[in-house]
């Protein structure tokens, strides 16, 4: 298949079901995406949409109920323990909370050299040189080596986490809400840093965020998730300027913009309903201005519409433009 040649990771028809007291939750419902080398895919959606579960499944931290995941040509479920361990060198993660993802009792040097130790790379001296190099590449100094997380600011901790993720020179980095906890001015620094590092190292990013602005800035391709499904997927221009799913449109118009000229724009509010129609074919139907009155949205199963080579959506009656 062509996609496998051009992808560093492929997620195919993955579902993950959690069983709880009140019923089953489809955290991922037939989700497919692929990561192209040197590019960024953003998964966007609100809390509970399944974006973090998708990341966990890709990282091998969670096992899907069905579907397959291939990373660099290897199928995740079929690997032996040692093979999986070696594969982890190639896919690393940076998480949301700058402080809790770092061991607060360890120095910055020990934190960043952790992955090197785990794989027995180099000796003490060469590891230190490497850590200093990594620190420089994320905009920190040698003087930070001996510091512990509590002596650093949130932005600096996030830089340390990024340096640790880069230590093994991976092909793929999963960034799970990696800038969400940072203040505006610091967030901009870290985003610029991530883009620079990607360019220098040819990294592939899976960028998970609820912030559409961040997705817009970082991603070549964007997948919008709603209740465990990818409802729209396309490149930046497709999703932001030519949105076809009603949820994408509602999401975009909900973002308050810091531009006075946008103050008076008419805004399409996404409705909240107390009891979502779980049996509806389209899970967005109960909140959708159009779908609520349509029978097919209730009973006819949805199929992915491939509008162009890059743009697809999951909707019976997509938004028309022009």
């Amino acid at each position, binding site marked *: 298949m062509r996609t496998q040649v051009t992808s560093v990771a492929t997620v195919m028809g993955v579902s993950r079901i959690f069983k709880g007291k009140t019923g089953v939750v489809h955290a991922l419902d037939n989700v497919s995406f692929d990561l192209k080398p040197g590019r960024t895919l953003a998964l966007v959606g*609100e*809390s509970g949409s399944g974006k973090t579960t998708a990341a966990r499944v890709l990282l091998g931290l969670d096992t899907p109920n069905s579907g397959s995941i291939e990373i660099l040509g290897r199928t995740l479920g079929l690997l032996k323990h040692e093979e999986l361990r070696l594969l982890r060198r190639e896919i690393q993660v940076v998480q949301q909370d700058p402080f809790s993802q770092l061991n607060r009792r360890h120095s910055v040097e020990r934190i960043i050299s952790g992955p090197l130790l785990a794989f027995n790379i180099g000796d003490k001296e060469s590891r230190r040189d490497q850590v200093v190099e990594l620190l420089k590449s994320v905009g920190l100094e040698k003087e930070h080596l001996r510091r512990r997380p509590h002596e650093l*600011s949130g*932005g*600096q901790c996030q830089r340390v986490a990024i340096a640790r993720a880069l230590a093994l020179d991976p092909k793929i980095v999963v960034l799970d809400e990696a800038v969400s906890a940072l*203040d*505006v*001015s*610091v*967030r*901009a*620094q870290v*985003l*610029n840093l991530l*883009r*620079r590092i990607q360019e220098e190292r040819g990294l592939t990013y899976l960028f998970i965020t*609820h*912030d*559409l*602005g*961040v*997705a*817009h*800035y970082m991603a070549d391709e964007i997948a919008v998730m709603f209740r465990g499904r990818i409802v729209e997927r396309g490149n*930046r221009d497709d999703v*932001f300027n030519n949105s076809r799913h009603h949820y994408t449109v*509602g*999401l*975009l118009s*909900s*973002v*308050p*913009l*810091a*531009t*006075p000229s*946008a*103050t008076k724009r008419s*805004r399409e*509010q*996404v409705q*909240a309903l*107390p009891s979502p129609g779980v049996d509806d074919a389209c899970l967005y139907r109960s909140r959708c201005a159009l779908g609520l009155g349509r029978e097919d949205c209730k009973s006819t199963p949805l199929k992915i519409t491939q509008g162009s080579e890059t743009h697809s959506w999951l909707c019976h009656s997509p938004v028309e433009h022009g």
Partner: protein
Amino acid sequence: MKNALVVNNLSLSVPSAKGRVTVVDDVSFDIPAGKKIGLVGESGSGKSLTAYSLMRLIKDPVQIDKGEIFLGEKEILGMSMKDFRHMRGNDISMIYQDPMSALNPIMRIGAQIIESIRLHSDLDHGQARRLAIEHLASVGIPEPDRRIDSYPFEMSGGMLQRVVIAIALSGEPKVLIADEATTALDVTTQDRVLTLIDKLAAERGLSVLLITHDLGVAAQFSDDIMVMYAGKLVEKGSVNQIFSHPVHPYTKALLDSRCDYTIDVTKPINSIAGQPPRLDNRPDGCVFSPRCEHVQPRCREGVPPLISVQDRLAACFRAEELFHVEMVK
């Protein structure tokens, strides 16, 4: 216009290894009746402590060193706590970031609203319950007569924040403080909750202090904007003045460093170099001078006062000059 709230020269400090350090520094502002003021700033800028002072929720080790706060005609900082308790909820109310921790998790929401209503009136339980249902309906909770018996864990974050708003407004206050009240909510929910606050404020002539780190939220839901940095109020003006022609270098840098989906993705974002000063290490002179690209020697020596520049207030020696440079561009 009559002011609902006036703050004069408010200063707060906290203890540190180097002695007490100032965290809110000589802040003065007022909120005209019926206006919505957005207070923006990054974490540590002192915006929440300013809000807590208005509710008299400042506790050890934080201290109010000086200042006056007038709520209507009355000065509240010099008042006894017993007297102020009658004003809290009746004259001024606050909603917080996390609705789950603002509510008692093992009490039905109805009981919590009724408690608040009866504290501020002499209604009996039955009357208060009927009023509570009305309040729930007015904040857009569907089936209020049924939901009144729900526990907090049975409701979503957006619905809980509506309950908190209903409680905050149950004493019919004149001033409402919203401290990052929608920060924990999803963007579609945030939009609905802010629209609700907007509508209620208009209906009741409320004065609102909207505290947020989100420039978009401030731009869309305020009349006037105040910008705080490292405990200082650095600029104050109308939404249009602040967002179209900011004069303080920090305001301008903050706006330039935003990342929403309208920015040019082909260039790096203009981020502000460095980071906000540590509390125990505030710079001499202008607090923003170490990160400011327009810094001059005088900025490191004297503290620029908040003065009128181009129909707004700004605390920068070069504000007037920079405004004209910007205009020429």
